[in-house]
């Protein structure tokens, strides 16, 4: 089985978010970048398929040279080979088109991406990618088992979960649940050394439709001072008469 894990390079979850250039760009100053958490759950599940079912695992990222440290981390975790599509990711639709080229040329059985990236929150790359490559698609996937070309998966739904059957080739939008938080791997020294020698190919982008543009950003209005209640009675009174939420 040949697996491609699509990895987005995103600000660490603890990052404070600021904008620059007249609020038209995300301010990367002082920001630590990591593998998108939803992608990392997928990568870790792919490692399981590699170790238990002999799968080969490639990764792909759309971005300039600055994304390579994040890609090397994925290689250090255990991916075999990496592809960087050398263009700035502008919107989900064009990113999916770039990745579709890699998928078509690579003959992958399974493609795993995150349900959404935690920066631009588009949540569309895996689904559009599945359509462009005419593969099956399961989103918000929290369990994935593969036997030959038969797939059994569980996806999250509002208020519960749904068990699904499907078949390879398949694209998955992954999230926590594909593996547990405690299954995530911190690269060890041997992994980091080996990652330096693994192939990271740079591919030139294809012509793509740019569907959306983020023109301007702003931050939520600052919050007023919290009102502390001295008693439960006072809290209920505030929620009923002032906030009018109960």
């Amino acid at each position: 089985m040949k697996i491609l894990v699509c990895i987005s390079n995103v600000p660490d979850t603890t990052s404070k978010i600021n904008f620059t250039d007249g609020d038209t760009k995300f301010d990367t100053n002082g920001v630590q970048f990591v593998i998108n958490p939803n992608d990392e759950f997928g990568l870790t599940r792919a490692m399981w398929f590699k170790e238990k079912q002999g799968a080969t695992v490639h990764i792909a990222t759309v971005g300039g040279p600055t994304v390579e440290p994040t890609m090397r981390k994925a290689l250090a975790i255990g991916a075999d080979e990496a592809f960087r599509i050398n263009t700035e990711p502008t919107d989900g639709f064009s990113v999916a088109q770039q990745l579709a080229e890699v998928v078509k040329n690579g003959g992958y059985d399974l493609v795993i991406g995150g349900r959404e990236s935690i920066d631009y929150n588009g949540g569309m790359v895996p689904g559009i990618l599945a359509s462009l490559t005419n593969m099956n698609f399961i989103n918000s996937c929290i369990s994935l088992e593969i036997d030959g070309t038969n797939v059994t998966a569980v996806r999250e739904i509002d208020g519960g979960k749904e068990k699904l059957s499907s078949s390879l080739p398949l694209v998955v939008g992954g999230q926590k649940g594909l593996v547990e938080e405690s299954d995530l791997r911190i690269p060890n020294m041997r992994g980091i050394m080996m990652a330096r020698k693994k192939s990271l190919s740079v591919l030139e982008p294809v012509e793509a439709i740019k569907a959306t543009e983020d023109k301007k950003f702003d931050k939520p209005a600052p919050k007023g001072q919290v009102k502390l209640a001295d008693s439960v009675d006072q809290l209920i009174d505030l929620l009923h008469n002032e906030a009018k939420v109960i």
Partner: protein
Amino acid sequence: MSVLVYTESEQGKFKKNAFEVASYASAVAKMMGTTVTAIAFNTTEGESLGEYGVSKVMNVKDGSLETFNAGAFSASIAEAVKSTDAKVVILSSSTDTKYLAPLLAAKLSAGYAPNVVQAPDSTAPFMVKRTAFSNKGFAHTQIDTDIKIVGVSNNAFGAHENKTEVSVEEISGAADAATNDTKSIEIDKVVGKATIADADIVVSAGRGMKGPENWGMIEELADILGAATACSKPVSDLGWRPHGEHVGQTGKPVASNLYIAIGISGAIQHLAGVSASKTKVVINNDPEAPFFKAADYGIVGDAFEVVPQLIEKLKDFKAQNG
């Protein structure tokens, strides 16, 4: 040319978000000087959308589409977009709709902006305000394609009555040219209980509860308020509560009217995930807990004392106020 809205139903009845997305579609149609057409699957109450500004309902009557299927549903919606020559498609932010939205975007070569929080800034160019960076910021996103898809955030725009003459037409499901071997085997869903996605009130608890055996009072409080229960990330990582309850940046977002956080200190990732909630209440014994800076109301006190009191007092309150 009209605005097309996909209104979700369950066992024939519209979900709460159906009226919210219909209201949003109605606002967009007004800006563009056109009307709203809705598409629904096997609904028994299509006429009710007339209360929210919809003038035509296309009800896909098809026994094979009783259970949600992203590929099949997106094929029928795409067909409706073509037959009505819609240039704008309005969707909700439910998990099902976020599953079909990218498939629909690809079928229509349409730009898709999810998590939109208010009526468009403008319709020419088409610009919407949406949450980004997991609620730590907003993006004003311009959609450049001929057909535009807008996903409306839960509980952001609200349902607005706008009585309109409505006609309901039954249509059959469209065939899908795309590969689709994905089939539902089993749905495991709590019935009769509010879900985090559509609850007006969410009661959430963290590590301050000390152990899973102490969740009885959280569930009791939620029951009294008709609320959904949620938890912080450490609690779900420890296995005290199911993953589905984890709210925050890598869990579910919360956009309820009231969010009550008990024994949750308020890590930046958690605060981001719940920031769309309108009123936030914190109960924590540590007055320095970061959550107090992000909350509207709070009580500094031990959850094991405050929550039982709150349960008793709310019972009295409910008895008096119905």
